[in-house]
């Protein structure tokens, strides 16, 4: 058990979520310990992003409870939790430099006249350095590559040194080198003792650093280490249909699952990147 002084980053008990009149899932119990990285896998529409939204207080549970960083979830949004979204490319005409994207993590929520506080600038420089963005932090974000933008978003998410970090498909549409860079940053933050919950449709880029996997499919879960969960037997049982976990070239491929086609497609893209 974790000690009394450091609250568990995340504790979910008997959680259920409805969307409209459909129940996405029920009876979810999940604990994330300090320094632990849990990946959330499952086909699209299984409620992975909804789970993150519930932890942030942006989506109500229909049953159960969530305790994040020692406090029950309430209200809308939580500044103590870090949040890393998908790498959507920013429009070319955006009135922001790289450092301004990072700065939003520090002052983006502040109302009142936009006057910087003392210490903000030093903290922003520190974050830019930590995510290796010194070289492009002063360029307009619109001209930066997807990978560079995503590094800056990591800086934004880590602005408050959050003890719980939620990542929603943080690697999608990044090339292999940038995927590795972002994975390295997430891993480095986890090593400072933060808990990480990472939603992804492709486990391969994070397989090395994952402690446990929560696999959601069919409104059911399986929770365990990658070796326990990513097997033909376990996943077939979860989907209620024959599903095969294959290993090819050091990568795991799930075949036969509803989003298997999508997964295969992504592997193809990676192959091209490596070439």
């Amino acid at each position, binding site marked *: 058990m974790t000690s009394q002084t450091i609250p568990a980053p995340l504790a979910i008990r008997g959680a259920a979520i409805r969307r409209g009149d459909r129940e996405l899932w029920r009876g979810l119990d999940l604990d994330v310990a300090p320094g632990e990285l849990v990946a959330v896998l499952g086909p699209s529409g299984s409620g992975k992003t909804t789970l993150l939204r519930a932890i*942030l207080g*942006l989506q109500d549970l229909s049953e159960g409870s969530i305790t994040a960083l020692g406090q029950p979830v309430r*209200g*809308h*949004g*939580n*500044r103590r*939790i870090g*949040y890393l*979204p998908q790498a959507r490319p*920013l429009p070319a*005409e*955006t*009135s*922001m*430099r790289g450092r*301004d*994207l990072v700065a*939003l*993590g520090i*002052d*983006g*929520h*502040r*109302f*009142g*006249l*936009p006057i910087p506080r003392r210490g903000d600038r030093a903290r922003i420089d520190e974050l830019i350095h930590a995510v290796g963005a010194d070289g492009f932090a002063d360029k*307009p*974000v*619109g001209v930066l590559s997807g990978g560079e933008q995503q590094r800056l*978003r990591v800086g*934004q*998410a880590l602005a408050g040194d959050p003890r719980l970090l*939620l990542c*929603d498909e943080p690697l999608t549409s990044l090339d292999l080198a940038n995927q590795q860079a972002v994975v390295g940053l997430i891993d480095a933050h986890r090593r400072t003792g933060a808990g990480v919950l990472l939603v992804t449709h492709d486990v391969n880029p994070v397989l090395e650093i994952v402690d446990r996997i929560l696999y959601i499919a069919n409104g059911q879960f399986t929770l365990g280490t990658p070796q326990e969960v990513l097997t033909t037997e376990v996943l077939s049982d979860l989907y209620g249909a024959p599903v095969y976990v294959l290993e090819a070239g050091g990568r795991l491929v799930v075949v036969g699952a509803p989003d298997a086609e999508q997964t295969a497609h992504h592997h193809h893209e990676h192959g091209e990147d490596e070439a």
Partner: protein
Amino acid sequence: MTLDDIGDAMFGGAAQYGEILALVSNSVWAGAILGLVGGLIGVFVMQRDMAFAVHGISELSFAGAAAALLIGMDVVAGSLVGSLLAAALIGWLGARARDRNSIIGVLMPFGLGLGILFLSLYNGRAAGRFSLLTGQIVSVQSAQLGWLAVICGIALLGLLLIWRPLRFDSLDPQSAAARGVPVVGVSFAFMLLLGLVVAVAVHIIGALLVMALVVTPAAAALRVTAGPVAVPVLAAVFGVVAAVGGILLAIMGTLPVSPYITTISFLIYLVCRIVGARRDRVTRARD
């Protein structure tokens, strides 16, 4: 019309310029404040991709002003009611971009039609009847000018107070919500502020030309810079130059103010585009 006539229409009053300027000095001030606020709010209009919404709000603002004219109410109050109503409706029903565009597309002709109906029913002076559509600041009475300035001031203050959360929400609503920004409230507040600015702009350059002060200056600024301070400052400067420059040029003759403002605004944009394109080419060559 001969060249002499055109010259007379443009510069006929040049000899009495000082006297005319003294008469319209309040209009110049009102134009300056509107140019400033219009440029600033335009930065967010561009970032949130809402140029079309500006146009939709201005047509309903025109309908409100025309209705006020018809029933003998204050015209500024009428335009304010129309534009706040439109802004609230678009903000409420059109949270998603695609919904928003269809709602605006539906509202806009309805508002314009209503306004034309009210103007046709109105039996007042025929002259200046369509000034709500094409604008004529120098004919606005000084009591109303005061109101226009106050409304602009409120919009400016409101915009500065929500500046950072609004910027966050405009760029990345998901992350903003995750970090506790009340995104629904901020978006709605922005729509109401936009409604205030548009209502003022209707009186100064006319409902059909509002975008020349609320969209063009910011679009021009975004062409030449990306700094978080440089863009709003430059947009505000462009807005003030267009509004004040337009009025100062127009009072030399008998032509309306609006074409001057729209032309200056457009020329600024053109220059910014050329400067931006040339710099892009230089940067690429250096890379």
